[in-house]
């Protein structure tokens, strides 16, 4: 009789322990689950124009009329810029090269931007593989020399694009020569909403290294940064 009572108490105790464990594990397991998820930050594609700042190597010549002409080769944007009503500004600078010897007596070349001049794109000519672009300068700094190479910085704002996302969102699959982004798929789950990843192929039509414009809508929630390597179907936590 006494043994039976002890066993009954043990059984009740075990049930109580199980309930306590269940309560504790419910909270801790949810915490663990959330902690183990890869944390991602998301962005939405925006309708905006991308600012460009491209650098080219230009050559200084003097044309028949005695004008100073800086010419350089561009393989993108040149035609678009030429067709615009407003002029596109360019900064032209000479490059001062400095030769130094390092501790191992190896020659090291460093350069710095010298004197600059501002002008506008005046001429765009179709050539094989791109465009030959030129700007004419009335005067040039005294240090500039004919046939020398100059740094041409073209600054312009691209046309408005509907789906612009940070360039870091776009992943390049070298094997299939395809660019893609990851977007999140929302799924209602027992504890709330679960987010899984879906790969969406994109066609980048314009980029400045910081932002990329893609042709079609990749979705609303695009992954920009993640705490781990991503893969399709992965469950993530949005931060």
């Amino acid at each position, binding site marked *: 009789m006494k043994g039976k009572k002890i066993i009954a108490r043990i*059984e*009740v105790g075990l049930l109580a322990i199980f309930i306590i464990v*269940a309560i504790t594990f*419910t909270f801790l397991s949810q915490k663990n689950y959330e902690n183990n998820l890869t944390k991602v930050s998301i962005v939405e594609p925006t309708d905006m124009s991308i600012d460009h700042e491209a650098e080219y190597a230009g050559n200084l010549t003097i044309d028949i009329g005695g004008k100073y002409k800086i010419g350089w080769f561009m393989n993108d944007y040149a035609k678009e810029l030429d067709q615009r009503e407003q002029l596109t500004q360019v900064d032209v600078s000479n490059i001062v090269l400095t030769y130094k010897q390092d501790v191992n007596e190896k020659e090291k070349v460093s350069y710095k931007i010298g004197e600059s001049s501002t002008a506008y794109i005046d001429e765009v000519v179709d050539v094989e593989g791109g465009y030959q672009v030129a700007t004419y300068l009335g005067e040039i700094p005294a240090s500039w020399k004919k046939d020398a190479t100059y740094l041409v910085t073209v600054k312009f704002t691209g046309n408005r694009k509907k789906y612009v996302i940070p360039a870091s969102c776009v992943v390049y699959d070298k094997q299939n020569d395809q660019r893609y982004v990851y977007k999140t798929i929302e799924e209602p789950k027992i*504890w709330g909403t679960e987010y899984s990843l879906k790969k969406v192929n994109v066609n980048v039509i314009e980029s400045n290294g910081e932002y990329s414009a893609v042709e079609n809508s990749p979705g609303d929630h695009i992954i920009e940064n993640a705490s781990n390597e991503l893969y399709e179907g992965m469950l993530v936590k949005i931060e």
Partner: protein
Amino acid sequence: MKDARKIGSMRKKEHTRNAVIYAVMVLMTIATVFFLAFLLFGSFMNNGELNDTYGMIKDGNNMMAYASFHILPDHFTFTQYKKVLWETSDFWFYFWNSMFYTLPILLGTIIISVMGGYAFAKFQFPFRKFWLAIYIIVMMIPYQVMLSPTLIVLNNIGLINTRSAIILPNLFTPFGTYLIYQFMCGISDDTLEAAKVDGAGNIRILLKIVLPQVKAGIASLAVLNIIDTWNIVEQPVMFLKNEFMYPLSAALSYFQTQDTGTAFVCGVTFLVPVVLVFLIGKDYMIEGIKNSVVGK
């Protein structure tokens, strides 16, 4: 001498009969324990071993793989438990769903059954025996038969896909009322009459005199009810569209679709509370079943 031989022959017969009964019982025990052992040991296998062992069973149509059946795991591991109970919270969510259904149903059933049983046992009202017979008849009907009518009623009153669709129909169990009725029939009417003479009302008589005497009946009803509700499957599947409202019993099929290890662990953990409840209340339960069949 003749008598002694007769007694000897009778004893021999009895021994043989007992041996046969024991043999059948042992076989049945082995058959039952085998499945429990299969479930328990499977939960301690790692994923690789589970796939090697039950790969074909899980993938059904993958006939290139064969199940290399063995019960004891090569390496005992708690990884499956860690994965199901510690790293994700799905299991616990459904566990609390089950609790959410079990506790109100238990409480409601006890209240309704006690009141119903008291009325049938101690009140005189027209067609009392007829209504009791109806109760017994309803008790005999398999509850699966009642599913469709219940579904129609719940749909008409707008309770489909709510937790009430599970709780409300389960509060009214003819078996519970009948069980308590059987226990209450054993209480002497004279005691109740004496209490009435002393000025006690029906509620007071029920609470102070009747209930203490039917504690065992209530306990057995509680144990049977907990086990019954904990194992509920058909009603949630039929009455709930939102799977997140499923109790653990109905959600086990969801865990089975994840991976074999998860299914084993969920199966074992699902059994733990109900086995403990059974162990705690097995004596009451046996008494209750005995009473409901033969009366007090």
